[in-house]
């Protein structure tokens, strides 16, 4: 352990019952470096970081921070010591403003002096300084390029904006070490680039960053060193220079990984989805779809590219009857389902993978079985008399799809809550539920977001298999590589309207990116650095 190590972790172990989530992990982070933490979903990255952040207490081992042995009992404890974290799932209060979220828990009094006497303390309990925090937040936001309206309510923000609030919240607390848990999982390429600039700026200012990801090129671009986790064990810590992506992938997965999938030729048939003039409002009542037309045919994958918050969510929800249409018409296989309820869409053979796995995709507290059966329980598959349900059959069915789609972490389908699965495995469970009923139309909103390389490969494979079975697929994604790899047609959505229709052969990542961020054709030549990022 050298002098400039800010964080030293030795033999850190965490057990949940019989499950060893982290097994004697030892590594160190140098002051001022960007340290990558790479691993598949369920490899133990989040557990490890939650111990650093005081959310879990270790079963064994030691944490040294700035040379002193530490034990964190709560995130507050960790923050006070100088460790901040931005989680994959944001920890913001939707109904409060950006500013309120940032200062939450920090009580600053109107006096500039620290509280000393009893009276000051009492006053500190009941007053809140408003101007100074606002100024500070604005300064921080400006200096790191994190544009945000401090008075906007958090529920009004899209995911990218919410993340900026999370980062500001951490920065506001004067931390020395910032843990970023898969920060780019929710961002567009352009936003990611901005994010990277921000991270570099943070490091220039003397901050140390732990960067959790499973995107290999991000590790290569961003980090100084990288530690690789697999199955709860630390495989190796290496200097990023002098290691290739293929080597990293092998360290992470333990086998060779295919980066490109073979896409076979599929016959395209009759339209399964015909939508015209769709208009809809978002949760705030602001128009977010301004009359779009869309057709998906049997055996066709239509990709929708767009920066998060340009109407993708509303589009997807309209197409399953979950969000009311202001105007327009939807036909599924020629049947008019305009203004029909979600049940009619489910019965018509429409499957849906929602953007938010926890909020819309599953009931986290209920068992894997309950979640697996939610689209099929009405069919005669589990029938037992007219009103009764055969839970034995449902459990058997759940076990089948859990095995068939390689969902890991399920101890007992009737006992294990869906929320206990790791993000990637929960996503596989949702896909399993949606695909195993052999839908005619699959609407997948960000199906591979926040999922590791191995699972991404699986999920794309599954979609291609489904396409070969004649399913029409509408794929909404911010991952342009994914769209270019699997789509037959690509549409770019910008401010609630399609601004470009093209095919993967005719377009490039750069062109799509320009349309996504401006809604207009590119006006300049592609810069070279993007070409680097893309591979």
């Amino acid at each position, binding site marked *: 352990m050298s002098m400039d190590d800010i964080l030293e972790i030795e033999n850190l172990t965490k057990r949940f019952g019989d499950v060893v989530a982290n097994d004697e992990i030892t590594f160190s982070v140098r002051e001022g470096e960007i340290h990558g933490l790479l691993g598949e979903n369920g490899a133990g990255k989040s557990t490890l970081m939650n111990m650093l952040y005081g959310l879990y207490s270790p079963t064994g081992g030691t944490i040294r921070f700035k040379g002193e042995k530490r*034990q964190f009992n709560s995130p507050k404890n960790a923050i006070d010591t100088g460790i901040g974290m931005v989680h994959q799932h944001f920890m913001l209060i939707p109904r409060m403003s950006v500013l309120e979220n940032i200062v939450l828990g920090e009580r600053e009094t109107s006096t500039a002096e620290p509280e000393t006497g009893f009276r000051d303390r009492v006053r500190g309990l009941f007053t809140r300084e408003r101007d100074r925090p606002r100024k500070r937040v604005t300064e921080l936001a400006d200096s790191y390029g994190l544009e945000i309206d401090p008075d906007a309510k958090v529920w009004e923000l899209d995911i990218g904006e919410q993340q900026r609030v999370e980062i500001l919240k951490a920065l506001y607390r004067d931390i020395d070490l910032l843990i970023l848990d898969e920060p780019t999982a929710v961002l567009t390429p352009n936003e990611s680039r901005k994010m990277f600039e921000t991270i570099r700026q943070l490091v220039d200012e003397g901050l140390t960053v732990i960067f959790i990801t499973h995107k290999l090129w991000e590790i290569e671009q961003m980090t100084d060193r990288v530690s690789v986790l697999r199955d709860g064990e630390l495989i190796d810590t290496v200097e990023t220079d002098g290691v290739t992506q293929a080597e990293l992938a092998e360290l992470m997965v333990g086998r060779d990984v295919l980066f490109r999938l073979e896409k076979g030729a599929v016959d395209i048939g009759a339209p399964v989805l015909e939508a015209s003039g769709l208009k809809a409002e978002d949760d705030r009542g602001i128009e977010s779809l301004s009359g779009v037309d869309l057709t998906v045919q049997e055996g066709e994958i239509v990709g929708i590219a767009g920066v998060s918050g340009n109407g993708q969510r509303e589009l997807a929800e309209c197409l399953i009857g979950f969000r009311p249409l202001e105007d327009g018409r939807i036909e599924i296989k020629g049947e008019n389902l305009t203004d029909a309820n979600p049940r009619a869409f489910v019965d018509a053979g429409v499957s849906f993978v929602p953007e938010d796995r926890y909020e819309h995709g599953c009931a986290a507290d209920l068992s894997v079985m309950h979640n697996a059966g939610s689209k099929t329980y009405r069919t005669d598959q589990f029938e037992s008399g007219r009103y009764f349900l055969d839970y034995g059959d449902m459990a058997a069915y759940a076990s089948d799809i859990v095995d068939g789609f390689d969902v890991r972490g399920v101890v007992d389908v009737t006992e294990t809550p869906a929320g206990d699965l790791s993000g990637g495995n929960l996503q596989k469970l949702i896909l399993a539920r949606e695909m195993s009923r052999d839908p005619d139309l699959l609407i997948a909103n960000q199906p591979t977001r926040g999922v590791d390389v191995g699972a991404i490969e699986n999920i794309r494979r599954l979609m291609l298999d489904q396409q070969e079975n004649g399913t029409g697929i509408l794929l909404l994604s911010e991952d342009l590589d994914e769209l270019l790899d699997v789509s037959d047609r690509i549409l770019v959505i910008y401010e609630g309207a399609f601004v470009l229709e093209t095919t993967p052969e005719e377009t490039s990542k750069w062109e799509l990116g320009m349309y996504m961020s401006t809604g207009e054709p590119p006006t300049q030549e592609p810069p070279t650095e993007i070409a680097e990022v893309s591979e």
Partner: protein
Amino acid sequence: MFSVDVSSRESLPRWVEYSLPLLTVVAALGVSAIPLAWLGVSPLQSYREIFVSNPTNIRGIANILVTTVPLFLAGLAVYLPLRAGLWNIGAEGQLFVGAIVGSAIALNLSWPAYALLPAMFLFAGIAGGLYGAIPGYLRAKHNVNEIISSLMLTFTATTFAGYLLRGPMQGEGGQSATEQLPTAARLPTVGHPRLHVGVVALVIVAVLGYLLLNRTRLGYEITLIGANPASAVQSGISKYKTYVLVFVIGGSLAGLAGIIEIAGVHGRLFEEFSPEYGFTAIAVALLGRNGVFQVLLAALFFGVITAGGTTIAVTQNVPTAIINVIVALTILFLLTAEFIKDHRLTISFDRSSGTGDRGMEEVS
């Protein structure tokens, strides 16, 4: 100086989850000992009477079972909506409506018992169900908070009962009560003069309730809606139908509880016929929230306390209000237990009495 640190917890140890209801009860009884002792009664002797001697003689058993019936039915009236994520605070009102409609039929039709009793029960159930449907419908269609609407409807129902009993339904004698119901409208008794046949409802409703929640499609839909409405609706489950149905089924059970209490115990309708069964039902549903049979056990527990409390009120000469004290304390501890389930309490002793903002460093 010591400090108490409250932080939320992400997982609950199994043993805590299962022993919590029991600990709650023990803690409530422990604290209830204070007012008992203050009244000059030995808490141990009181508890022995409530939990040992009363439940071991036929009269005591009859009292306990008869008290458990309305508690259980009204408890389910709260529990079913709870499973769908809704709060039915209005079981008391639904119980009153059932009692009013059932009594009105009994007083106005001179049918024989085999026709009269089923008619009373049927219409009491329907009335309770319809009354329950109001908050369910308002919540499902217009997102009106069901806690407030169901509670307000309770006041409406009890006040309306007060009007009826001093007006259209008032019997001879000038009290705010109806005439005695005809004998044909009385539930027969078995084994003991107080033990009416209505107690079979305990078994029948428990089995039906269990089947409904754990074996039927509707039960599955209720469970899914209760766990995550957004995901359930996207699966094609109707939130509207589920919300209305749980309130209708719950309300009709509460309505049945009302008429059973009149036809089985009191023999006529009067303003104070229910010692707030519909509100104790909330505690019953919370205590038994893990399942229908647990609700039955919880109802039985409150039945034991209520029946036993009435007994010690006589034998030990304490005010009957002591029953309410014990019940109220149990509810209080239930809420506390709810908090403990979600939060971890750490009590730490800190010698460097909190000066700097760099926090305390603890090594354990």
